[in-house]
């Protein structure tokens, strides 16, 4: 049975630019169950990290509207002290940028140990040290006893990333948000880290939000996938449906731009135009319309909403029914990865 762990309702996260607030996350509604991996994909700047930071309560100057229910408790509106207690204990995050997340003046062993102290107060110092070393070993760090005593600047980028992962999984959290956890790592280490995250899910029933631009990682890890564009969810479905029958023009374009590892293709698909900056985002109509100028404008909804096409498969706007790639005919325009 699927048990709800996190419920995000109409979340709107806005940043102040000059005198106005602009929403980077714009009316996002999502649920995450225990023992589930929800993948979030989307272009750079689409609001994925802003969403993650909102759930973790880590934005200090953003305006947050809507509800974030973690085990039925609204954490969008609780005291910083209570939130602090949840963080690093019941919920944890792997950060996209490892340098900013580590304390440059503290050896890494102590940083991991500190996290353990939050949760397992009755561990002896020796037990804690052993546990830290075994965590370092689990994330694939060679010579963990040696690395225990090193400062962040003495480690390579990939090693720092793994220290962050060790901190995040140290207390076996119920909710783990992993923001591009493996982007800086080579594939063999990546595979090892992904296995570790899977183990956490299987052993502890952890619910996981996995943010990544690597669609291969999503295909291998996720149970469901949400696709974000310009602050909104434009499509959400179980992983099989999303890869076999993607509907939203953005999702289809994204899948088409991956270098195919199966067979050589000549040209990769490129999405025309660029993601507009936050203050210039289109706020009315279909936000992706400008990126598909060859499609007749009349096919978009005036106020696009998510439509449930099949149980659990939601797509924003009706334009997907009329979408085709510029270099293909309109007839055979409907296929995913196969």
């Amino acid at each position: 049975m699927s048990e709800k762990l996190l419920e995000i309702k109409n979340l709107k996260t806005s940043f102040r630019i000059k005198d106005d607030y602009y929403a980077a996350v714009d009316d996002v509604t999502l649920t995450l169950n225990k023992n589930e991996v929800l993948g979030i994909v989307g272009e750079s700047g689409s609001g994925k990290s802003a969403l993650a930071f909102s759930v973790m309560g880590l934005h200090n100057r953003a305006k947050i509207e809507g509800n974030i229910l973690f085990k039925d408790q609204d954490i969008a509106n609780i005291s910083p002290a209570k939130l602090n207690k949840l963080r690093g204990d019941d919920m944890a995050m792997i950060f996209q940028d490892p340098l900013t997340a580590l304390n440059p003046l503290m050896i890494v062993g102590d940083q991991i140990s500190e996290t353990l102290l939050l949760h397992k107060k009755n561990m002896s110092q020796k037990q804690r040290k052993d546990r830290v070393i075994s965590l370092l070993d689990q994330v694939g760090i060679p010579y963990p006893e040696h690395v225990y005593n090193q400062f962040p600047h003495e480690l390579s980028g990939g090693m720092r990333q793994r220290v962050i992962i060790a901190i995040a999984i140290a207390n076996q959290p119920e909710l783990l948000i992993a923001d591009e956890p493996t982007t800086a790592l080579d594939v063999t280490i990546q595979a090892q880290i992904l296995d570790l995250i899977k183990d956490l899910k299987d052993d502890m029933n952890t619910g996981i939000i996995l943010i990544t631009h690597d669609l291969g990682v999503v295909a291998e890890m996720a149970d469901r996938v949400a696709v974000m564009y310009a602050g909104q969810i434009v499509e959400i479905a179980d992983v099989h449906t999303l890869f076999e029958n993607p509907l939203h023009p953005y999702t289809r374009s994204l899948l088409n731009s991956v270098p195919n590892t199966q067979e050589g293709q000549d040209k990769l698909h490129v999405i025309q135009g660029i993601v507009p900056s936050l203050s210039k985002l289109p706020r009315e109509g279909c936000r992706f319309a400008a990126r598909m100028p060859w499609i007749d404008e009349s096919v978009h909804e005036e106020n696009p909403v998510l439509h449930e096409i099949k149980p659990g498969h939601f797509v924003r706007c009706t334009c997907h029914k009329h979408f085709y790639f510029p270099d293909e005919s309109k007839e055979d325009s409907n296929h995913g990865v196969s």
Partner: protein
Amino acid sequence: MGFLEVEDLKVYFPIKGGLFNRTLGNIKAVDGVSFSIEQGKTYGLVGESGSGKTTTGRAIIGLNDITSGKVLFEGKDLTSKKSKTASVRKDIQMIFQDPYSSLNPKKRVLDIVAEPIRNFEKLSKQEEKKRVQELLEMVGLSPESILKYPHEFSGGQRQRIGVARAIALKPKLIIADEPVSALDVSVQAQVLNFMQDIQKELNLTYLFISHDLGVVKHMCDEIGIMYKGRYVEQGTKQDIFENPQHIYTKRLVAAIPDIDPRHRAEQKQFREDVQREYEQSYNDYFDSEGLAYGLQSVSDTHLVALPEKG
């Protein structure tokens, strides 16, 4: 004679320490690497983090001192003092990994792109501006961009600025170190397509360094796989992806995430089998120090690091 030939290249970094900061030993970042690239082709350099890929690239372009070995570019020995001439350095350029930090944020695009030109040619302000604008047009940026600063561009556009700078002197060889790793897939596609277009247009040769095997497979004709400063395998794209021989290459290929979720169980099984094989046959593929053996040829195009027979 090849276009670029690297022969038994070694780059060691001293480990210093102790009382008088003496040299205690060496990090053998590159430990006897040989390969050659034909003009107009793309050669991929792949391997785990810290295996010496960047150091190899930097040694070729002269940014790292070479401990021993040779780098021959169009027959000229780049390692001999005499040929460290300007004209050769002009012919080889590098694109750096990170589009966010490799461009000086305080400089305008004009100055960034013109920098290599200023080092090698004497142009008037007018000529220089015209040249930079032509280059920007080539990489698909508007001529007005010359007065902007890097932060005013998206990641993909910034990487194009880096490319414009790299092609400013019409080089023959470009060393591209993880040129798309920091970019999301749609921007990545844009940069890769573009690199292929200018390759045809200018008959460019690429040394393409990456840890993304999907990208390497898409771009490269030949591939070398590095492990702890040494080569474990080299071959054509088909040799490496369809017929990997060294256990490390097999492990690398098995670790590529599959974009089709239906293959999940299969892929997991495959990876476990390869991992088991890796553990069981480790001693057949690595010496007592955990380093790769010398390369033996298994076909005309395919070399694998195996212990010598007999």
